């Protein structure tokens, strides 16, 4: 499902390079295989898991009440980053690429 959404965006952005992109898409390995091959990726995923678990062992005394919700920082970090990245794309779509550099 994730792959399809990726290729949809690709088709929109690169009409002229369809055959190339399709080839690239075919070469992209699913996440699990990458994780098995690349130790850094495995390590990263393990760390993420550890952080999620550790959340239940810390005593957050946040002055802002929403911060005390379990896994708040993890979710908020992920969502903020994603929102800002999509916001940047929206900014470009709104203001367009006017003059060439």
């Amino acid at each position, binding site marked *: 499902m*994730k*792959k399809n*959404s*990726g290729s949809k*965006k*690709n088709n929109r952005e690169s009409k002229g390079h369809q055959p190339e992109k399709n080839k690239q898409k075919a070469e*992209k390995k699913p*996440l699990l295989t990458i994780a098995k091959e690349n130790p850094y990726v495995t390590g*990263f995923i393990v*760390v*993420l898991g550890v*952080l*999620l678990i*550790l*959340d239940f062992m*810390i*005593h*957050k*005394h*946040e*002055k*802002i009440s*929403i*911060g005390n919700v379990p*896994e708040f*920082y*993890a*979710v*908020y*970090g*992920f*969502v*903020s*980053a*994603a*929102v*800002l*990245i999509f*916001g*940047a*794309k929206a*900014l*470009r779509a709104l*203001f367009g*690429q*006017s*003059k*060439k*550099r």
Partner: protein
Amino acid sequence: MIPSIIHNGFPPALIFIIGALLVPFLKGRAKFAYLLLIPIAALAAMSGVDINGGARWVLPLMNFGPGYDMIFGRIDNLSRIFGIIFILISFVALIYSLNIADDLQYVAGLCYVGGALGVTFAGDLFTLYIFWEVMAIASTFLVLARRTREAQAAAFRYVMVHIVGGLSLLAGIVLYVKAFNTTEFSVIGLHSTASWFILIGVALNAAAFPLHGWLKDAYPEATLAGAVFLSAFTTKSAVYVMARMFTGTELLVWVGAATAVIPVLYAIIENDIRRIMAYSLISQVGFMLCAVGIGTQLAINGAAAHAFCHILYKALFFMVAGAVIQATGKTRLSDLGGLYKTMPLTCLYCLVASASISAFPLFNGFVSKSMIISAASHEHLTAVWLILECASAGTLVYAGLRIPYFIFFGEDKGIKAVEAPANMLIAMGVAAFLCFYLAVDFKSLYRLLPFAGGYVPYTFAHVIAQLQLLLFGALAFFLLVRYDVFPSPSKSDLPDTDLIYRKGAVLFYRAADVGMNALNAFSAELFIGRITSAVNDFARNAPAHIAYLCVSPFKSILETDDGGAKNLKSSIYKAFASGSVPVGITAALSTLFIVILFCFI
């Protein structure tokens, strides 16, 4: 005089400015040694001053009386920390720029540092203004020194913007002095028209949204070493002035929050590496402004600590950028990649800077940014806290991950590059070391802060929470990059608020051109074309015209039977044309003239 200097010390600002004047006369090793001696001398001069001793280096301003003294040395807890970091970073930047042959950069850079120190230690508005303008002019030369067409244009816009800001500041100062009859200042707040003008002038230098356009416009066009200087002084001295004058102003909380988060959007898609860093600078200054607005002791401590740490890692970023640009000749993210093999040390320093700016634990951003966010939560400012945390995650995305990933890792473009020269590596190494050291021995930083605090950054809960925020943000970044959702670098200029005066200036010029030239043409037509020629026509036959005017009331008497009014008129004109005017008319006119003279004199 010398004993008096030893006893009283000498303002560090003047050490830099006067020191700058001697630089062109020195060469080679002597010049290197001299350059590095200046910050050391300034530090000594500053350290010799007792913090609790009150104002130093006071000069009475003409005969205006007390309250109008020029105070060159207001060194207290707030100004000292800014002074220390300014001198420290100037030392590092001078090491970085040691192999540059262009004396203009040294003189401009040293004057610029002197101006910043002058602003920081100014105890009165007059001295503040003088050094403010010294900074503006000196920094313009750092942009101009690149000597490219874009740099000239950018420098022109830069100096225009800063002149406007300086004028606003001056207007505010004049109004303030008129209202309060003194040039001394501490907290002003936003209570009068004067304070609004001052706020706008200072906010412009601080690159607060929406007055931030000049920074992203000019800094990428500066010289490679000049940008390192530029990154540290204008904005942070403005932050200091804000902290001195506008502590606790609520407007700053919101302006700061907006300034923290909006540039993140631009930084995610910009292509020029130094433009990304410029937006990053604006964003971090937003954090500081927000803290100044919050105004509590923890917040002001946070602003000062963040300024200290930010100067270090931002200078490191610009130094890395300068090294990469010098080695590869490329300034754009889309042209770079795979440089970790050829520039490993520079890559390491970039990673240190990235970790610092992202506020990763064990790097100095963590011990300073946390204070600001904590201050926001202590005051229960939920919206502000959420915005700042969001901006922190965003900072990780564009600065912590995007910059190092696309420059040093990512797609290997096979660029031929060599590692940076030794002096650059040493300068970057010093900054990187401090980024790490200040996070481990954070007490040494906290000791310099304006207020005694007892803030503890490394609690288990806080470290875990921060790691969650950062690493899950990183997860979002990597997933979006993998699935090609992450935006590619923008190929052309993105419009920002500087468009208002860039397009606006062109529109104004055109309107003035059309309007003024039309007015000019109309006036020429009216005054030269019509009126002058009318006067000329009259003057050509003036006696006849005047005679006819005087005689025409008596038309009915003088007219002969066989004609109309034309008869009289044509006979008079004929008479004047031939030069033989009938005696009667001459006599009549002369009598009339004498009567008039007699009546009115």
